[in-house]
Every structure is written in C-alpha cells, then in structure tokens.
C-alpha cells in the first residue's frame, strides 16, 4: 500500500472487483448493499454470490483498497460497512481510464458508434 506508487501496476482489475470499487465510489456500503448495487448497475448481468463477494472484500481490505468503518446499520446490526481508501479510489480511477481508452479505440475503429454512449 504505497501512496506514491503507481496504481496502473495493479491493472487490469477483474470485472467483479471493479464493480465493487464502483459501488463504493459514491458512498459507504455494507456487503449486501454492494452486491445489490452491482446487480442494479449491470442490469442483472453481474450477480456477486457471497463467496465471491466476501473473498474479494477480504482481499481488498488486506491490500488496503477499502477499509471497514465503524458504522452500525439500524436495520441489521450484524452488517459491516466499507469505504474506499484514497489508494483504492486511485486504482478504481485508473481502471476506469483504462476502460475509457479501450472504448475510445473501439470508436476509432468503428466497432462502437458514439450513440452507444448515450
């Protein structure tokens, strides 16, 4: 976890991992909420089961991309909340830029039309 390091060394991220980071980009969430958010954002095509989800969450906590926060959910006190770290945010941004580059290239090569971005 090196604040001065290059996040691009960790690219490309697995799709599931990227979606988890995306889900945490705007706000803190607990595990279940992350899963739901990913499902919504991808229109149901990416569903993270508990094994995948928590395995990735544990890995990201260990690597310092996300942290647990001391927030208790009013509805379900069992749940733990997570937040992106600045380092994790930089990694997510780097991956998003990489994907954007890929999209731009696809548009240049006429694989995608501008209307796809609408």
């Amino acid at each position, binding site marked *: 976890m090196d604040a001065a390091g290059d996040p691009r060394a960790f690219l490309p991220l697995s799709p599931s991992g990227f979606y988890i980071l995306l889900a945490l980009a705007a706000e803190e969430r607990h*595990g*279940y909420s992350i899963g739901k958010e990913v499902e919504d954002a991808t229109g149901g095509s990416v569903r993270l*089961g*508990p094994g*995948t989800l*928590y*395995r990735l969450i*544990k890995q990201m906590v260990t690597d310092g991309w996300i942290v647990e926060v001391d927030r208790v959910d009013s509805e379900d006190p*069992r749940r733990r909340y997570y937040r992106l770290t600045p380092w994790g945010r930089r990694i997510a941004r780097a991956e998003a830029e990489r994907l954007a580059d890929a999209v731009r290239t696809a548009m240049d090569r006429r694989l995608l039309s501008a209307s796809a971005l609408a």
Partner: protein
Amino acid sequence: MTLRRILVSAALLTYPADFRAHYREDILADIDADPSRTGVQLLDLVKGAVLMHLDAIARDFSYALRRLRSAPLFVAIVVLAFALGIGANVAVFSVLDAVVLRPLPFVDPSSLGVITSIGPRGDVFPVISAVDALDIASRSHTLEGVAASASFGQRTLLLRGKPYALHGLRVSTNYLSLLGITPRLGRGFTIADGKPGMHAAIISDELWRKRFAADPGVIGTAIMLDGKSYRVIGVLAPGQLLADPNGERVAPEDLLEALPANPPATQRGARMMGGIVRLAPGITIERANAELKDVSANLTRAFPDTNKGFAFFVQPLSTLVLGKASSSLWIVFAAVVGILLIACANVGNMLAARWSVRERELAVRRALGASSRRIAGQLFNETGLLASIGAVFGVGFAYGALQLLGGILMRALPRAQSIAIDGNSLLYAIAIGIVATLLAGLGPVLSLRSSDLQSVLKSAGRGGDGSRRHRLRAAFVVIEVALAIALVIVSGLMLRSFLETINAPLGIDANGVVVSEPIELPQTEAPDAVLSTQRELLRRLRALPGVESAALALFYPISDIELESSTGVFGRTYARGQEPLALANAVSSQYFAAFGVRPLRGRAFTDDDTVGSAPVAIVSERFVQDYLAGIDPLKARIRIQTGPTQYHWAAIVGVVPDQRVNIVADAFGVVGGIPEYYAPLAQLPQSFFAAIVRAPGLDPTSAGREVQSAFTAVIPSQPPPEVSTISQRIANDTVKIRLTTILLAALGAIALALALSGIFGVVSFSVTQRVREFGVRIALGATTRTIVADVLRRALATTAIGVACGVIITAFAARAIAPQLQSISPFDPATFATVVVLVFLSALLASLQPALRATRVEPAESLRYE
C-alpha cells in the same frame, strides 16, 4: 436452525477459520435476504473457498520461489537428488510395467498355463509330445482345452523367385481360439485344417504388408514354403504377439502352420511340443495339478515304454515367459526404491539445516499463536516445488536412460518393445513426487514442531554442532557413504570382469574376419552334390577381391554351436562309457589360415585332403595333453565318427592351439580349453555349414554383402545367411551381463552422487551452526587455512567411517557375486583402492564450498547473529 443455515455453515467450513469468524454473520444475513437464490449462492460459496485456497497456494509458491532464488546451489543439489531418485524409479517402473505388470495380450491370461514335464532324471522342461497332449485334453476335466505349439526354426518363402527367411510356429488347430486370438483378415484354423494334406497357413500383418503389399486378395492364394505349397487362410492383427512355450517367450511370429490333428501313436515319446492350457472357469491351478497327477500316473500305467518316470504339471504361462526377467527386475526395483529413500533423507537433512536457521523466529511465532500448520505448509510447499522440478528432470533422465539402453533391453528382456514413458509412467512420476515430498519434508517438519520456545532460546547464542540431531544426521551420512562404496566397488568389479570377458584371448586373430550363420542344404541332396556346391561356394568366396582366405566349417569360435563326439586313439582300448570325448569339427582347407592360426606342429588341411585320399585329422593342444600323453601326435591315429555306427581311423597331420569356444560359459560351464579335433569337410560331408572369410582390408559390412551374394549365386533357393564379425557375435552373447553391468554402474553412480550431496548437506549445516565459533576465531586471528582445514578434517573423518563400513560390507557382498566374475578376484585391491580414493576426493570437493563459506564469516556480524 433451518436447513439453509445448516448448509451455509457446512459450506463455510471450507474457508479458513479467521475468514469464517469475520464474515459468517454477513454471509448468513445475505443468504437470508434472498431465499430464492440459496442454491446458486451455496455453489458460489464453495467456489469462493476453492479460489481462496488456490490463491494461498499460489502465493506460497511465489514466496517459496523467491526464497529459493537466493540459494541456487542448494536448489541445484536438492533438485538433482530428487531428479536422480525419481528418475531412476520412473525408468524402472516403465520397464516393470511393460515387461511384467501388463497382462499378457491374450483373453483372460491368468487362466492360461503351460504343461511342464518332469523326466525320470528330475529334469524339468516345458515340453510335451503331441500324443500325450491329446490324451491329457480328453482325460482332464479341470482343463478347458490344450493346444500344442512348436517353433519351426526357419522356413524359406519363395516369392517371385526370391527367397525370404521366415520364423514361426506350428500350432494345433485350437491354438488361436484357446488364446482368444482372432485374425484380422480371413479366418483362424478349424479342425478341418488339421487333416492330412491340408497345408493351411496364417501370416502376420508385417509379412502381409512387406511381401504381399497388404493385398486382401492374399486370402486363399498359395505360397511356396520350403518347396511345399501352402494356402494362406488368414492375416493376424498388427503387432500380434504369440505364445511359444518351449521357446519360453511371447513374441511376434511371421507365420503359423496347422499341425496335423492326429499324430501317429508311435510318437508319444517325441517330446518336442509346448502345451498351452486354459483352466476351466473357477478352477485353480492347484486343482488342475492335482488332477494332472492322476492323469500322468494313468498314462504311465498305460504306456510304460514311453511314459515311465514322467509326470506333468501346469505352471502359469506368465511365470514361464516372464519369470526370470521378473525376479531380476523386482530386485532392481527394490534397489531404486532404496535410492529414493536415501535421496529423500538427504533432502530432508538439507531442508532441516536450511530451516533451522529460522528456528528461533519460528518458535517465537508459534508461541505468539501462529499456526504451525502454516509453517509446515510453507515447508511442504518449498519441498513440493523442488520435488516437482526434480520430477520433470527425472522423467527426462528416465527417457534418456531408456533410449540409451533400448537396444540392450530389447535383447535381454521379453516384451521390451513396449517399454516407453507413457501415461502410466507419468502418473507414477507424480505419485512418487508426492511421496518424495512427504518423506523429505516430514523429518524437518517434525523436528521444527517439537522444538519448544524455551529450549530453543536457551540453546540460542551458543550454536555449535554437537547436538544429538547433528550426530544423527552424520550417522545417516555414514550409512549413505557405506552403501555408495559397496555399490561402486561391486560395479567396478563387474565392469572389469566384463572388460576381461570381451577382451579374452580367443586363440584366433579375428581382425578382418567375417563369419556367416550356418545354412542347411536339403537332406535330399546327394553327398556329391553337397560337395560340389561347397567347392563352388569356396571358389567364389576366394575369388572375391580383398579376400585372403575363405573356408567352410561346421562351427567356429563363438558360433554358439558345439558338437561333441566320442573318439579313441588307435591301439588303445577303453572301457564302455570311458571313451575320450572331444569337440568334433569338420572344416575345409584354409580354415586355420582364415583365423590367422598357424599349426604348432605338422600342417593344416589342403585341397588334396579330399574324398578319396587318406583320412586325416588335426587335433588341439588340449587333445594332445589329455589323450595323447607319451605319444608323438603326428604318428597317432584317432577314430572319427562318420555316421551313427560308421567310423574311420584318421592319421593326425597337425596340432593347433586351443580356440575359445564361448565367450560366456554355456549351460555346461564351457568356455574353452576342451580337447578338439578337426576332420576335412570333404571327408566328413555335412549339409550344414557356415562360411569364414578373411578380408582384412575390407569394410565388414560390404565384405558381408559380398559373402551373401556368393551364397545366393551358388544356392539361389535359400535366402543368404546373416553375416557378422566375431566382435559382433561377442557383443550379442554378452548382452545380459552388459545390461547388469550398466545398471549396477548407474546405480553406483547415483548412490555416490547422493552420498556426496549428503556430505555437502551435513557439512553445510555444521558450518551454519558453528558460525559464532568461526566468527570468534577469525576475530582472534585464525587464518583461512586453519578454518578450512578444520571443516575439512571433520568432513573427512565422517567420510572415513563411512568408507570403512563400506569396505567391510563390500567384502561380504563381493563373495556373493564372485561366481559372476571371470578372472577377477572379488577382493581385487586395485578396484578397492581406486574407489576409496575417488570417494575421498569427491567428499573433499563436496565439503569445499561450506568450508570456504566458513572463512567468509564476518566476525562482527556473526556475534550479532541473532
């Protein structure tokens, strides 16, 4: 506790404990929130666990790789030890698998047996007469069927005017169905094929492709074999193996002929067939043999003239064919398993030494709660990684070794053509790799676990290598060195004996000599015709460019043929059964010249010694010594047997030096030094003879071809005989001992390499333990030389103990192999001395790197070592 919770809790058990503790509640809550998807989620849980474990393994491997990169010499030695141990095992297993373990290629091979006769003098042979075979078949209830087979040596196939030599079997009509063999084309034999006058033949796939262009129309056509017409009724499947009991082999054959179904009853005593039986379903060999005892007794009662004193029993076909090879192979297998154990112990020693450096750190971590499973896991990871790399190299070694030995294996072992590194061998390599990892890692893991924090902390700072563990390791190295010495000396003795054997003086000058296999002219030819054929053949051979001399003879040195005859000296009488025996050879003129032999007395045969002239003979030195003591040989006459009852008296005209008969002792222990007499070929006509040609300037292969053309020109109805040089014949005859020698040498080399790596490991470890001591001594001014001498002295002391033990073991072992050694004493001092010096020098080399490492200890660092 709903079913859902139970299932989830069970799935969670596949995760590491800390993960489980931390995320269990979250996961349960998630599952509860989406009850409809429980099934999919459970699957995902298990998948996650698998991936997590794989991740951990991958991380441990890259950690292990990083650690290993910093110690390339250690890695090299350990990988080599694994490679040698695993490679040797894979190679031997591949041979064992192809030769012994694979079932014979027949239907239900375990119920197949061979009828074996015990004769009145107690000799045991796997032969029977066709008549007895039929009676056994009809009188036995425990045998489902009896088939007879006999090898016919050689038949000549005449195809479009060209002769080809074929080998094969004459078999009873139920042979193929008994073994469960179905021809690929056409049909097998039926009872009708056994009727007199029906010459039915089945050919091999190879013969069909090579000589009949794989034409399916060959079925039903007639072929000429030895001048008789045979009808081809079937073609066997490619690579089909056939059982030949009296040849004690299972091998491919060119041709099968049907035996007549009703052999004349008068031939009951002609025991020349092999009898293959199939046990009836559910019958054991013991029951079959019990019944066979009664059947034998009945036959003896009914036909006392031929069957008195004969008993029959059944032995399993696989025992007959594979038995001899099997026992030696299992011994070799035991040897390589032993080598693997030594290799694993070696590696274990080295691993323990390497990990003991971290002993304190590990003890502290364990005291603070780190799981010792994790540490054991890391150690096994490292070992497993090294073992895997070693296994890959080992399989490579095994492949190379089998390629190198391929030729010898094919000639020395049955079914050797199917030896290969195949799927079975690779599976075995993986299994052995896992076993090796466990064995090698077990010792260090156990010793690391047992060291508790207190005792480790107490002993830390003192270092030193006087610990009990170190002495145990040193003791183990002593055993390794002793075993290596024994193996290397024994293989050295075998090697010298082998070299003496193939370089043994033959009594002839075999340089530039080409000899042929014997051919046989048809018995129907009149003696005059035989003689003129031989004269013409000699004329052509002697006319070949580059040929100094050429001769024909019944047999010659290293020909694998010996003919003995009783003889007598004119004027002496002998009691019945006490007549002198001698090897009896019939040779043309120039026989002795062709072998570069000059008579010691008198002369050799000339072309004038022919049919009408006075009968003459030449005798060997030994003959003179044994039978002509006190007489001038050139004035004596000896009796030469010219027929079953006919003989004539021949005047001895020459005495020649003894010739070596066999390179390796034959069944009667004969190698040479036997009385021998020679008669002129013309005076002792033979339709069976071989050619000897002396052509020193010619290349043997082209000389051989010329000889073969001469044969074809003079005897076009037969394929020309194989030709070879005497050294090729010697190589052929020594195949089995060459294989044994090579194997022993290889095992000796491996054992030595392992022992040396063991020495390296122990010395290395000792140096590591004594780092503080060296630091202090260097700080106090000890020179490089003193330190190196100290380390080397201890290493050599351990080696010396091992060498001493090894020499003692060898003294006992050598006595056991003495019968295999020709002309070398089993206690040959030169061999012993060479090996001992070699081992000491190598031990010195192996200890050098650790010794030098000891001198590079930084005194300040070493004192700060903890």
